């Protein structure tokens, strides 16, 4: 007996509006469908009417959590169009802010995953530690979110000795606190048991459906734009691509925790080897007619911008493909044959940034066609009930 459940735009937690329609049979999901468009703002058309510099401000606001990734991807592309070489110090500062953004985004995600699985203390811990990173970003750039540190040809602000010392001290505190996240499995086996086996995506499926980011890396595929197509100064920095091979939500958590530690190492390397010099070069107003493809590894996956210029001071075409869009096809595959109570977890595991969708779930009975609306809160309560350990026993190993 099949029901169809719509999950609609208003929901109690942090996410954006999307609509999800799932066909269920009892508790098991047979089919899923995603309705985008609640967050569609017509940005690509708007970008054709603004100049190159105004577009930096616009692309930053595609997403609030990964705002630096969109500006950097755009600015890299425009610098190639205008044939500019930003100075090394500018590139180092750009990479530093990129890694800080990755840390804050992964901590945000860990908190959200903990919240969806019912582990609210973990949510409060990670967001408290995230405030340390927000303070660092505020000293560097002046704002907690939407740093605005990029400009065409380099960065806008410089670092001084006091800020570098503040960052290195905070990094020590963060490393100590992240040890708790790393040992989470041994301290909290119920958390690990809740995440294991949920949202399975095999390696072949992940490759065929063109998944990106930690979702892909948790299925054992080592694709990372920082290694494949190095931009900024990533070809000089030693780091590893983190993968896991459990192919489920547990693997994605492990990949993100491993990446946190890689970020700390990268930032330490950057600050110790910061070269002297200017931070930006002057950029011309117009760009010659040309086209460029620019890729970037955002915290959620591969971010790709295609920019075409026509000789004036406005772009001819700006195409943005944010990482979460690449993971949708994989999400639908993951939801099939899962349980309704796992929906918040599976959806949170791809780290949705739908501003780059609202959740109401409506259940539709496939036989009679009747609709029953259940709120996301009820769905979440269902998920929490399962965490209380009743219906399932899973043997899970914590890989760290």
């Amino acid at each position, binding site marked *: 007996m099949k029901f169809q459940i719509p999950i609609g735009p208003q929901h109690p937690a942090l996410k954006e509006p999307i609509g999800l329609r799932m066909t269920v049979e009892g508790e098991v999901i047979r089919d899923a469908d995603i309705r985008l468009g609640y967050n*569609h*703002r017509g940005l690509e058309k*708007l970008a054709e009417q603004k100049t190159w510099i105004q577009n930096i401000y616009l692309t930053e*606001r595609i997403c609030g959590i990964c705002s630096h990734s969109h500006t950097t991807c755009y600015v890299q592309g425009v610098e190639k169009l205008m044939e500019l070489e930003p100075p090394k110090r500018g590139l180092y500062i750009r990479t530093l802010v990129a890694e800080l953004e990755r840390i804050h985004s992964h901590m945000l995600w860990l908190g959200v995953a903990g919240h969806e699985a019912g582990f609210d203390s973990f949510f409060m811990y990670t*967001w408290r530690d995230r405030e340390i990173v927000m303070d660092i970003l505020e000293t560097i750039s002046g704002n907690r979110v*939407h740093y605005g540190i990029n400009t065409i040809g380099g960065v806008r602000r410089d670092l001084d000795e006091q800020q570098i010392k503040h960052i290195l001290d905070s990094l020590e505190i963060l490393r100590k606190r992240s040890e708790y996240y790393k040992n989470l499995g041994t301290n909290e086996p119920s958390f690990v048991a809740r995440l294991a086996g949920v949202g399975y995506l095999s390696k072949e499926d992940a490759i065929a459906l063109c998944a990106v980011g930690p979702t892909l890396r948790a299925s054992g595929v080592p694709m990372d734009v920082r290694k494949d197509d190095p931009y900024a100064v990533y070809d000089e920095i030693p780091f590893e691509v983190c993968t896991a091979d459990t192919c489920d939500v547990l693997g994605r958590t492990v990949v993100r925790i491993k990446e946190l530690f890689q970020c700390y190492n990268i930032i330490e390397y950057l600050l110790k080897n910061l070269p002297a010099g200017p931070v930006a070069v002057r950029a011309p107003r117009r760009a010659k007619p040309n086209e460029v493809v620019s890729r970037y590894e955002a915290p959620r996956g591969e971010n790709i911008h295609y920019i075409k210029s026509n000789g004036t001071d406005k772009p001819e075409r700006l195409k943005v493909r944010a990482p979460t869009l690449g993971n949708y096809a994989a999400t639908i595959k993951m939801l099939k044959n899962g349980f309704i109570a796992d929906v918040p977890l599976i959806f949170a595991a791809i780290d949705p940034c739908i501003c780059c969708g609202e959740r109401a779930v409506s259940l539709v009975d496939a036989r009679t066609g009747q609709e029953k609306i259940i709120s996301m809160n009820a769905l979440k309560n269902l998920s929490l009930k399962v965490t209380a350990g009743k219906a399932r026993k899973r043997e899970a190993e914590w890989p760290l």
Partner: protein
Amino acid sequence: MLTKLTNWSRLKSPWILHLNTGACNACDIEVVAALTPRFDVERFGILLKATPRHADVIVCTGPATRQMKDRLIRIYEQTPDPKFVIAVGACAMSGGVYRGAYNVLGGIDQVIPVDVYIPGCPVRPDAVIDGVVKLLNKLKG
């Protein structure tokens, strides 16, 4: 007598509903960050509720997109009286950077009546707390 009690409880402990109508998420994480240990609004009695039927105050972020217009009106009608709407961020006030885009109607006040506007792009959590407090003062007086 009972009205005095309910008014007092509304002033001392407003329950908010957080609604995102197409924003970039920055204002949303700042509103949720107001619950975390550094700012901690729960000690003032402000609780984040899941459904509009339990809420006193709707905290709204993001420009109103065409697709969200009907849902926004429906949620506004589902909230019981007396209700208040706070528009958080530049996008909710007037459309922000997205003014002129084809899928954006403008600020939230094109669709529902708004009581308090909080500027910023994005808004600091302190500013959110300040806005809610100003709303309560407006009610008292």
